[in-house]
């Protein structure tokens, strides 16, 4: 499955990554290389195999419905690149 230029662009947008033309070129090569290696998997017949679920065989780790957190907006906002009172301030979102 060869990766096209459009394919790379589409994936970059999905991942919110901006790639320079150089990065694009080297990435295309890298990914092709690795994806070719991945084609290996098609050698195996896995029709009757269940996808791996979890390494641990435990059921249902659930929590009780109780409020256990203390409000502390300041602690949470301490690392914010921008804030306005107790809001996170972000670039304008156009609906």
């Amino acid at each position, binding site marked *: 499955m060869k990766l096209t230029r459009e394919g790379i662009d589409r994936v970059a947008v999905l991942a*919110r990554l901006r790639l320079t033309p150089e990065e694009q070129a080297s990435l295309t090569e890298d*990914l092709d290389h690795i994806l070719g290696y991945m084609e290996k998997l098609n050698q195996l017949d896995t029709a009757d195999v*269940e996808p791996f679920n979890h390494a641990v065989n435990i059921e249902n780790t659930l929590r009780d419905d109780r409020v256990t957190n203390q409000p502390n907006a300041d602690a949470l906002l301490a690392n914010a690149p921008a804030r306005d009172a107790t809001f996170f301030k972000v670039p304008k979102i156009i609906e």
Partner: protein
Amino acid sequence: MSLAQLTLHEASDKLRKRELTSVELTEAVYQRIADTDDKVHAYLTLAREAALEQANRADEKLKQATDPAPLLGIPIALKDNFLTKGLRTTCASKILGDFIPPYDATTVDKVRSAGAVIIGKTNLDEFAMGSSVENSAFFATCNPWNLERIPGGSSGGSAAAVAADECIAALGTDTGGSIRQPAACCGIVGLKPTYGRVSRYGIIAFASSMDQVGPMTKDVRDAALLLEAIAGQDPADSTSINSSVPRYSAALNGDIKGLRLGIPKEYFVSGMQIEVGEAVRSAIRELEKHGAVIEEISLPHTEYAVAVYYIVATAEASSNLARYDGMRFGRRANGKDLIETYMISRDEGFGAEVKRRIMLGTYALSAGYYDAYYLKAQRVRTLIRKDFDAAFGRCDVIVTPTAPTTAFRLGEKTQDPLQMYLSDIYTISINLAGLPAISLPCGFDGEGMPIGLQIIGKHFDEATILRVADTYERATEWHKTKPRIQDR
């Protein structure tokens, strides 16, 4: 001999006997760091003031305690993907900026509660992606055995710190070999517990279904003691198991008579450095002398492990790393609008390897490819797991080299990502199956570089692999050899 050269159990013993104070020990470690870290570059952040406060408190407790916990007063280093409250955490990435976590990882909380002294945060490959620490956004770490070589990765900083006595012990994380391979490169002990044995809460996630926290130490007993302190169910981690933690240190009785050692034929192939093969075979013979028996086994799907790993791990990582968007923490670039802000922040914040893996993972999950890549990989993962289940029907532990070669030279392999991936081949299957495994030194090559022996166990059978490792260690002197850190 500097106090910094003590092992955890030796130091604990001396502290208990009041032959030593935690403050003295901590100062000795910082002195050692001052002497050597300008060459090794193991640390990203040091926390001397806080550490000395902790050491003081530990000394107070030691005065009153009749049976102090083994970790009380012991200087520990943490890989910089562990969240430490109030102490800068970078994950060796620019994207976190000057992020100061508002909470401690569960395992950090545990070692703090046990009275350990946190020396600082060690270097790693950015977001734990890599096997040499060359992917750190800040600088490379050097192997104390030869400063021109890599320390292994991604927990290379922790491994180097332990090997260079820049801490008494350290914690690292292992997703595809990231504790074991650097342990092998640096001639120390590194243990990856069973998936679910130790809490992942507060560890910056890479591949959620594989990440595990583990001890990196100077000997096997230390690893057992540190594992005891960090293992156990965490209500904040849904994937951590509810099962009691054995006293691992009490199980080190040297008795491995009749123990069946599985030797997988797929691991002993050409491409392995000759000395590595020799050292590992020699180690196996040593174990046989102690009563273990060899069992030839096969893990037929070994060759597919790397492909499976690189699809599943990158897919999970691409999703885990979406939160690094410059909106609520970390570094934000100035874009003309929201989308541009996302893209530039992430472009400037992430290094090349991280971007590569995010792209790969996003691609593997994207519409039209999910079945062919992700789902297929997860099915093959089941086959790999089944290989191990079958093998463990015929043996008790599996013995292999930790890596096919000793540590590369810095810069040697970084241009070829595929080559780097291949060096993971002995460790990755274990993460895919969620098994516990330990690496410990078993010799040196002709250039004096350490060789690692890997012992893999059944799920939740850390006790057996520790016992085997300890038996071997006691019969050898590798762990007593220290690197002489020459000038670069």
